């Protein structure tokens, strides 16, 4: 299929984007890599009147260290992460995740910012960024704001990003040297969206322990009891029970509980080994 008629503008700078976004409505969409929006346009599931292409803006395609964070431009591609072009502040977690996103052809064009803004719950970056405690910086016509991943995501395919806002960077905190992570993903086949993905980050020097479960059709879930069990060393033996307790609160179909439990246990084991 072909997209509905629309106006297309290639933005030349961040300021240009903001200028173009002035008075923007729901009819305006930003496009970067186009790996999710492209098919939606062609299937006419999305029919915006106007597309603003930000993929050619150099300042949005860079990543740099800012204080204790790595600030990643939203147009950095999965391939750039996979190829190790970014400073590694996550002991290889982001590189590992990037390698498992779809296929190289998708990774060559697909962007981190696009993935977060599209907010497919089964996509890799939302859960990864949530697990890393990353924050997303947005700029609108009037002001800027910084949001946690949970604040950004409303639900499946839905965010709080206003029509006149654009993601300007994703801020990933640097893990300390002793930090460990675990990542376990199950998809129907290589390159598919995950049926289940668990990410556990244990960074005791920063007193940061997190665990996130990503599924299809549901926003990523934090695993508070599992995190509590991991945080208190004397409760180590109770981790499996804590995981079961977290899963119970998520109300999941019986046959899927096995899968999610396995993913969380495997990620936890990897992060605490």
């Amino acid at each position: 299929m072909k997209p509905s008629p629309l106006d297309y503008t290639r933005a030349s700078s961040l300021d240009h984007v903001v200028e173009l976004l002035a008075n923007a409505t729901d009819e305006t969409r930003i496009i970067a890599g186009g790996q999710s929006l492209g098919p939606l346009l062609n299937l006419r599931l999305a029919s915006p009147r106007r597309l603003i292409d930000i993929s050619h803006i150099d300042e949005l395609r860079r990543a740099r260290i800012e204080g204790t964070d790595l600030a990643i431009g939203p147009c950095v591609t999965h391939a750039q992460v996979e190829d190790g072009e970014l400073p590694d502040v996550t002991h290889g977690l982001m590189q590992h995740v990037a390698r498992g996103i779809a296929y190289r052809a998708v990774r060559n064009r697909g962007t981190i910012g696009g993935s977060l803004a599209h907010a497919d719950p089964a996509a890799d970056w939302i859960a990864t960024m949530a697990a890393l405690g990353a924050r997303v910086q947005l700029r609108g016509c009037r002001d800027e704001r910084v949001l946690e991943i949970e604040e950004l995501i409303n639900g499946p395919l839905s965010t709080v990003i206003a029509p006149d806002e654009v993601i300007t960077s994703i801020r990933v905190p640097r893990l300390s040297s002793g930090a460990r992570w675990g990542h376990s993903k199950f998809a129907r086949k290589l390159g598919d969206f995950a049926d289940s993905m668990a990410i556990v980050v244990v960074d005791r020097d920063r007193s940061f322990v997190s665990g996130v479960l990503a599924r299809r059709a549901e926003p990523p879930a934090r695993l508070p009891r599992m995190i509590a069990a991991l945080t208190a060393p004397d409760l180590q033996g109770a981790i499996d029970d804590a995981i079961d307790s977290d899963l119970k609160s998520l109300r999941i179909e019986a046959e899927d509980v096995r899968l999610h439990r396995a993913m969380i246990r495997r990620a936890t084991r990897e992060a605490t080994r």
Partner: protein
Amino acid sequence: MSGFGIGASLPRLEDDRFLNGRGQFCSDIFLPGMLHAAFVRSPHAHARILRVKKPAGLERQVFAAADLAGVGRIRSTATLPGFKPSDWPVLANDKVRHVGEPIAMALGSSAAEAEDIAALVEVEFEELPAVVSMWDALKADAPLVHDDWGNNVLVELKLEGGDLARAKAAAAHVVERSFRMNRQHPLTLEGRGCVASYDGRLDELVVHVSHQLPVPLQIGLAQVLGMSQRRLRVIAPDVGASFGLKSYVESETVCVAWAAAELRKPVRWIQDRYESLVCDANCRDYHCKITAYADATGRVLGMECDVIVDSGAYSPWPWPAGIEGGLAMGNMQGCYDIRAFRGRAVNVVSNKPAGQPFRGVARPLSCCGHEVLMDAVADAVGIDPLEVRLRNFVQPEQMPYTSITKKMIDSGDYPTALKRAAAMIDLPAIRNRQRNPETDGRLIGVGFACFYEQTAYGTGPFGYSAWGIELVPGMEPAVARLTGDGELIIEVGSHSHGQGHETVFAQVAHEILGIDPHKVSVRFGDTSTSPAGTGTYTSRSMVTTGGAVAEACRALQAPIAKIGAHLLQCKEDDVQIRGGRVVGPSGNVELAAIGRAWYHHPEELPDGLDPTGLTATAGHKAHDPGVFAYSAHAAVVAVDPETGGVEILDYAIVADCGKRVNPLLVEGQIVGGFSNGLGNALYEESTYDELGQPTATTLADYTAPTAPSMPDLKLEFIETPSPFAAFGMKGIGENGAIGPPAAIANAVNDALRPLGVAIFETPITAHRVRAAIATARPKARS
């Protein structure tokens, strides 16, 4: 010039153009002033059409059923008792019977404009309850897909042989299994499409179409369009796979061809993947219940089977939907010596797209039926699945063998094939490994699948001709023409859409005439220039068209030898044609000298030469019962009981397609067929919700195997030449696709055995494995 003939692994000659982007597919064809078509399609599975409203000002660019003057319905018939032909309207006018059924065609100056116009067409519907599953279709109070049918049964077939009562009475074990093979999409790399134009000079409608059967399509399309076949030229250019999909008279092609003739303008329609997944004919969608009556040693004395095929809303032309049930039932006894049989096959209609034969056609179900049953018998008797098969096989010394279902198997050695496959996966080592738990908690299983494939069958008396369907396989022609420079043009009636005909037919020519295959052009796919054959299906082209090419090349030997002997001033009996030359006792001439003499220096020709000259037409009539290829598959899988994921650890295939013309291409056919079979076994499913809405409409939802899904197959071959085909060949096109669902299902169930659960449904998705384990666990504990 050795190493090019029969038996040589010559790399494909056509790959040069495919790999260098010079292939020419339908969507590469652009004609001046071309219009683009888009279709208004039904959003409902079952509804009455109350009104079609064309957008104001664009009425002349939109065509509904009433506008297609002179166009008939697609009616695919059979003479089977009780068979109900469906009247398939090219554009729906009274009812729509599946989501995606075309209702109107919009034409624009670009595909986007055509889609914009199509989106403006308003259709009012009265929704009707939909028949979504085969079980719904069979209910007494089911809605009727075709109002005047009285029920949703398209045809019911029965087949009996031997003394089943005696088998039942003598049985020490009675085992029964059911197997469900869900609906799939054929998923060709290139979708369907066509470009039609009108040639005023020849008063001819030219239809370029992505199709596997251009010659039958000319017949069927002419029928529906109500025009003479001589005024309709069908050209199937390069075609990016078909697997059976692109072998029917498609509504879209009829509409586009009609518009090109009516408007005297070229019209193009190239479908996209969404349209393909929603609207194309589908495949599979079978269920069978099978029962074995076995003696105490595991010898199966009798078998019963009950097959249901959900054929979708319509019967495609030329192959009506009923043949799938007949094929599934008629091959259910497999390669086993079973002497009593009772089968029933019911084909039902539903509010889903038409069912269409797909690589393997119904045999994957037969294979699952007899192979799952063999494992069940082994289990009941307490012997290894390998052993139960060895005890039941038709033995090599019984060949030729007529099965209880009247299949006349020409040759083969099933026990050797299975024993070799078992050795290739090191069965004893796997059985040993199964005794101890795996460190990663996964479960290991082994599964076998043994089957024959009836290939390249002929006109009668069983199968297509007995069913009286629209296209019965017959003779295949070939024309061989030596050119003035001593090279060769071969024209054939069967199309190649991935098979490698351009290579293998050139190899056959080399075998007969010694001509370098690189100097041979193999042409097909254009009804104006190709001889008319029935085409590529039932794994028949190598045997039938290949046989015809051999005959045509042989027919060229006499004039070549005669002219060559004359030029060499020796006796005809003293010359040989070899290495692209005519070789005499004291000298030789190149084929170019023969061509030169014939085409521009007839004064140099000998007297008394047959004036037909250097063009030979020959044909091949297939051995009516066909020639029987077979395979033994052995799968080793690891099942993760937590995720439900299935990994293929090892997979061995021993295949016998008689003499292999090109072992490299045979291997390619098996590996490619395996990827279809792997999709069938583990991944592919066209899902529908309870309203009949398709829910796998993009490749994000329709999961098909990709390169990383493929195991490193171990292949070995047995070459038992068929006594009934040129060079002893047998067909191999579908073989690889038939075995994997059965072998993998048996392996998964072998792995799941410690948990006391089993899965008899494909695809065996991780979700299905987890669901099976989840339901069984509580029982196992109690």
